[in-house]
């Protein structure tokens, strides 16, 4: 982890554009998240998005496809098979994009730290901007995590997507350790590594 390049904002030519005042405010207050319930954490998302906690009042809503999403919520553990899909979904998302590690499993393996089929530390594979602790995190905790992310976007610190680009080789290397090939013959070459 420590040998990773720290993201340098100046080197990215879009940064000035992406982080000027109005767009920053807009990006902060309009977070569309990819409706991908990767793990059991998705069960606490439904109360958070429905009437009792209603995250739409914070400008958050779900989007059905990665193309439109700004935010990827990894709800809990990731099995190795899901990791493939998550990586591809993440790469399909358009910049700037953010990742929230939701629940203990994303931090250090959680309940399934000794399972043979889950990944233990999410930020070895994709950059994580915020971790929310809990198993499950309550809706309040989820909302706090989202608020934390908003603050981070406001402070120009939510730079996981730049980090991913600048350290792409490192991330790919880690991903390859877990995933041998993406999908065999049916896929174009660039997906098949």
């Amino acid at each position, binding site marked *: 982890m420590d040998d990773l390049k720290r993201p340098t904002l100046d080197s990215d030519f879009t940064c000035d554009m992406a982080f000027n005042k109005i767009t920053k405010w807009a990006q902060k207050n309009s977070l569309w998240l990819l409706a991908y319930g990767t793990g059991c954490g998705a069960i606490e998302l439904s109360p958070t998005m429905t*009437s*009792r*906690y*209603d995250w739409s*009042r914070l400008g958050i809503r779900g989007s059905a496809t990665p193309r439109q999403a700004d935010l990827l919520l990894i709800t809990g553990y990731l099995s190795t098979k899901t990791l493939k899909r998550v990586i591809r979904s993440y790469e399909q998302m358009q910049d700037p994009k953010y990742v929230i*590690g939701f629940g*203990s*499993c*994303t*931090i*250090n*393996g*959680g*309940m399934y*730290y*000794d399972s043979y089929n889950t990944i233990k*530390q999410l*930020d070895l594979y994709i950059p*994580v*901007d*915020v*971790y*929310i*602790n*809990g*198993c499950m*995190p*309550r*809706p*309040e*905790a989820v*909302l*706090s*995590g989202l*608020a*934390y992310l908003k603050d*981070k976007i406001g402070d120009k*610190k939510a730079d996981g997507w730049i980090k991913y680009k600048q350290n792409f080789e490192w991330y790919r290397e880690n991903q390859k350790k877990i995933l041998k090939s993406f999908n065999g013959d049916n896929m174009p070459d660039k997906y098949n590594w």
Partner: protein
Amino acid sequence: MIDIKGILGPLSALKFLGKAPHTIDYPKETKKTADRYRGIHYNDVEACIGCGSCGTICENDAIDMVNVGFDPNKADTGFRPVVDYGRCCWCALCVDVCPSGSLSLTKDYVYVDDDPKKFLYVPGLQELGKVNIDSTDDLKELAKIEKENRPKLKEGERSWYQKDRTEGLLEFNRVPMKELPGSTRIKSFAEVVLGYTEEEAFMESIRCLGCGLCISACPDRMHIPDYIQAITERDYNSSANIIYENNPLPEMCGKVCTRQCETACVYHNRGDAVAIRWLKRFTTEQFDDFRTIINAEVKPLNGKKVGIIGAGPAGLTVGYYLRLRGYDVTIYEALSKAGGMTMAGIPKYRFPLDSLDKQISYMEEMGVRIHYNTRVGKDIMFDEIMDTYDAVFIGIGFHDPYDLGLKGEKEAKSGVISAVELLRRVNFGEKVDVGKKVAVIGGGNVAIDGARVSKRLGNVDVTILYRRRVQDMPADWEEIEGAEDEGVHIVPQAIPEEIMLDKNGKVTGIKYVMAEMVDDGKGGRPRPKKIEGSEKILPIDTLVGAIGQQADYSFLPDEYLFKTQDDEKSGSKKGIDTFWGRILVHGYNETTMKKVFSGGDMVNRTADAISAIADGLNAVKGIDLFLQGGKETKVNHSVTESDLDKNKLLDKHYKMKHENGKLVSVKLDLSGNIVTESVKIAKDPDELKKDVEKKEVNKSTDKANSKDKTMSYPTKNTNGETKKEEKKSKSKKKSKKKKKKK
């Protein structure tokens, strides 16, 4: 057809347009979490003892123990739990097994950060996520900073915690030990404690959490959790083997150990400590002959000879383990039986005379030579020993009582006896007449023993006079209670003044002054101060003094004693240095004199059997290193695996069951049906009385039959007499068979 109801009905939902939403506007308003919400951990670090049970139960390995600047002591490892919130699942099992009750959860739940390393958290110590406790430097920093401002939570803020001993996963109540009732036991020297049955021992052993806090409290560092675990597995064989790894006198320890381990037990904070002593006793009671089960490897003789003075616990330990390591060992004992103070100074109702026989005979079988009735300095000279042996161990113990220092003590011709002497004489079967009224001076275990022994010598009225309050007595609480049960009067805050004598020099009474407790002004324990004019006279026949003992160094020729510092400087004379009556030792219990080692009461300050054993073990290592030139002999204490397997099969035929709300274990036959109810119902006191009376009769007949007239003592009282005999015959048969095979 058109479903009008189905089309118009749903439109009624639009009525909610006029109703206020029930959304919780989270950052602005918060919903109160429930009283038992399982949120973030909190640990009362002062109450925590660092036993690590929380870490053991955690199914996610989320809890580690780290040192965050707490000093370890006997009942506290100094470690504190650190929770990895990348693992925790908030099941609160750690809280449910926390024996000290310090760990709890809180109603807080928000813990958001962007650094995965910040999710390590020392509950009760670290403010959430502030310090990265991955590095040791930071840990030390943490310890420094947090010492002043530790977050202290009130009870209402803690959400999931154990309020009393009924909650949680742990059983805080000890399996009670059955004892003879007080009125029965003063009639004889029959053993008061009856011992655990197999099932009781199992139920008690299963309580042990295996944290090992007791190990650090035991002077001998016995492997307590291990041998208790073996009992749980009903594998008494390996239990005994584990005990024998560093204690050659387990039965003695199982009966009379001062058990510092139990005060360090995790259960001791909120409930009854695991009955470690009784469990050890139980293990040793399972075997009539240790020869068949202890599988320690005895090395062939290596040609080095070691002489040991005194067959007390220390001497016997040295003898046994040196023999295992291949030394030729000889022990010189002044008395007619081995055991030292445990044999001579502990009353037989606590420690029956035959308690040591098994162990001694096992040792002798192994090749430890013991010369009885051989007093060094009289029967054999110390010089001779020094010349004959390559190394010498002195373990003579404290057998000389201190004088009371009262007016009239010197003049008294009869009626004044020290407790040590009284006990020795009683234990070795001498007839002692103490008259009808006895006073005991002192408050230690020896004083209580003296009182309780006197009580058993006939219809005697016993009074204990002690300078301070009852709660200040150094004696064990159980002992004091036992004495009171048996009708011993305790007069606290009484300072003896003078022994009243008649013309013949016989004691008639004792004059004492009442005292009040005064603060000593230094924060120490209060001191007694005489109250003028409160003198009282207690008419007595015998006065028993029990204010302490000392060692008798008369056997040492002058040249072996280290006299002054000048001697050391000049180097002309180098001998055994003593200080306040104790031999000074260093390292592996070496004395200041070459090749002389020492241990036991006259070396350590705790002056109990287990410390003596510990000294012995230490000296064994020292002697071994000394004689092998710095290389230690390796010994194999382990037991064979086949034995373990054989015993493990046993427990599969047991299962746990609830009975009247109490958990018991029941025996099953091979098809799984319950065979017998496990816990035997305790005999009612009347029945026990009869038992003891029967014993009394047996005792007299035994006396008549006994060949050794001087060494008569009551036989051990157990309710399973016949069973024992059967076992004995069985074991004999076994040994016979073995012989035949050979």
